[in-house]
C-alpha cells in the first residue's frame, strides 16, 4: 500500500532488546524524520547506546523491527546510508592514522576489495575536510587534534561517506564551548542538506540551539516532540529521576 506520508529516515516499531536479565529497550517505537536534528536524551544506562547499536544493526532486537529509509538495516549499511561518530572514550587516539586516513575510511564501502582510493575518493575526502574546516590539519595524527576537531574529523568521515543518517554518541563530551558552537552549526547545515542527524547526549545545555526536536529515553520513549517542552521539569524528572531539574540548573552533567 502506498502512502503520501514521507518515509521516515529511522523507523523503530515496538523494539525490545534484552541483555540476559536486563531489559535495555522495552518496546521502543520511534519515527525520526529527515532534514532535522534530533536530540536523544537520557541518563547513563537509559538505553541510548543500545538504541544506536540497534539502529546500526550491531544488536539484533528480540522483538520489533528497525527500518532505515524504509529499508532493512543490512541493506542500508551496504548502501552506506548510516554514518557513525563514536564516543571519545571508544577511540584509540594514539592509533597511527592521520586525519585524512580517518576521513578516507568513510569511502571504503564504495571502493573495491583492496580499498584503493580513486580520484573521486580523494576529491570527496578533500571536500569533506574543507566542509569541517580541517584541511590544514589533514596530515596530523588523529590524536594531535583538540577535542572539538576530533569530533569534526569523524563528522567529515560521515560526509565523505555521504551518509544520509548520521548518529553521534555524546559529541560534546570533552569539547570546549567554542568548538561546541562550531559543531552545532555544522550539524544544522548537514540537516539542512536533507540528512538525518540523531545526537545522543546527557548535556542539556546545547540542546535548544542544536536540536529541532528531542526524544527522552528511559528504556522506553518517554517523550518525543519540541525541545522546550522536553526540557520542562516534569518531563526531565521522568527521564532523569528526581534530580532531573538539577541537571539543567547546574550544567555539569558530565
Amino acid at each position, binding site marked *: 500500500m502506498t502512502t503520501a506520508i514521507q518515509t521516515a529516515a529511522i523507523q523503530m516499531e515496538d523494539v525490545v532488546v534484552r541483555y540476559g536479565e536486563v531489559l535495555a529497550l522495552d518496546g521502543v517505537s520511534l519515527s525520526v524524520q529527515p532534514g532535522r536534528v534530533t536530540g536523544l536524551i537520557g541518563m547513563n544506562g537509559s538505553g541510548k547506546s543500545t538504541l544506536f547499536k540497534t539502529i*546500526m*544493526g*550491531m544488536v539484533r532486537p528480540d522483538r520489533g523491527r528497525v527500518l532505515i529509509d524504509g529499508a532493512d538495516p*543490512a541493506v542500508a*549499511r*551496504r*548502501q*552506506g546510508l*548510516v*554514518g*557513525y561518530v*563514536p564516543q571519545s572514550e*571508544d*577511540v*584509540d587516539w594514539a*592509533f*597511527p*592514522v*592521520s586525519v585524512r*586516513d*580517518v576521513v578516507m*575510511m*568513510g569511502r*571504503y*564501502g564504495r571502493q573495491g*576489495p*583492496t*580499498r584503493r582510493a580513486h580520484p573521486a575518493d580523494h576529491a570527496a575526502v578533500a571536500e569533506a575536510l574543507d566542509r569541517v574546516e580541517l584541511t590544514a590539519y589533514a596530515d596530523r*595524527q588523529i590524536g594531535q587534534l583538540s577535542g572539538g576537531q576530533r569530533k569534526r574529523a569523524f563528522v567529515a*568521515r560521515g560526509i565523505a*561517506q555521504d551518509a544520509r543518517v548520521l548518529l553521534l554518541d555524546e559529541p560534546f563530551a570533552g569539547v570546549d564551548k567554542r568548538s561546541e558552537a562550531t559543531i552545532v552549526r555544522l550539524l544544522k547545515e548537514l540537516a539542512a542538506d536533507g540528512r538525518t542527524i540523531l545526537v545522543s547526549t546527557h548535556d542539556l545545555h546545547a540542546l535548544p540551539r542544536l536540536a529541532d526536536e528531542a526524544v527522552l529515553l528511559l528504556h522506553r520513549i518517554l517523550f518525543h516532540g519540541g525541545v522546550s517542552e522536553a526540557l520542562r521539569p516534569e518531563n526531565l524528572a521522568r527521564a532523569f529521576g528526581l534530580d532531573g531539574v538539577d541537571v539543567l540548573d547546574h550544567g555539569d552533567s558530565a
Partner: protein
Amino acid sequence: MSPLDLLLEPLQYDFMVRALTTTVIAAVVCALLSCWLVLVGWSLMGDAVSHAVLPGVVIAYVLGAPFALGALVFGFLAVALIGAIRGTSRVKEDAAIGIVFTTLFALGLVLISVTPSQTDLNHIIFGNILGVSTADLVQIAVLATIAFAVLVLKRRDLTLYAFDPMHAHAIGLSPRFLGALLLGLLALTAVVALQVVGVILVVAMLIIPGATAYLLTDRFGHMLVIAPVMSAVCSVVGIYLSYWLDAASGGLVVVVQGAAFSLVYVFAPRHGLLGKHLTARRRTVTA
C-alpha cells in the same frame, strides 16, 4: 680475516643459506602481522595461538596432511574455547587464555611423545633453523607468500577493523569476518615462524617488530615498512652472531630484536624515553 670474509664465510654452507632465507621470510611475515596485533591488543592472543597450534601440527604430521591445516584448525579451536570459557563462566579472559593455550600445548607435547617420528621435541620448542631442509623451505615460502599477500591486499580493511570496528560494521563490512581473517593469518604465520625460532619464541617475532615500529612513526603505512625491514635485519644479524659465537640461533634472533626494541624505546625521536623528555622540557621552556 677481513670483514668481508666474516660475512661470506657462512654462506659457503648450504644450511646457512637456507637458514638465512627461512629466517628472513618468517621475520618479514611475522613483522607485518605484528603491526596489527599490537594495535588491536592481541599480543597475548598471539602467544596463545602460537602455542595452541602444536597439537594440530602433530596430528597433521601423523595424518600426512599439511601442517598449516592442522594449525588453522587448532588456532581457531583455541580462540573458540577461550571465548566459550570467558562467556559462560566467571573466569576472566587472561585466565581463560592461560588455561586453553597451556592445555593445548601440553596436549601437543603428549602427542609428540607417543608419535613415532623423527621430529625432535626440542626442534619444535626451540626451533631448528640450521636443520631446515629444502622441502621445509618451500613449504614455509608458500605459506608465507599466502599470508603476506592477504595482509597486503586487505591491509586497509584490517586497519579499519583495528581502529574502528563499529564503523566497519556501519558501512556494511563484517568485523567478525575481519577478526577471523586476522586470526587465521595468525595461525598460518605461527606455523611459518615455528620452524625458525620454535614455539616459545614465535610470540617475540609476532610482537617486538610491530611494537618497535609503533614507537618510531605515527603512520600505519610506515609501520608496515619499518617493522619487516627491522625484523629482517635483526634476524640476519642474529643468525650471523649464532654462527660466530656458536650459540643458539633462534635465541639470538630474538635477543637482537629485543636489543633493537630497547634502543628505539630509549632513543626514538618522538615516542622514545629521551624524545618525550626533551619535548616536555621544550614545552616548559616555551610556556
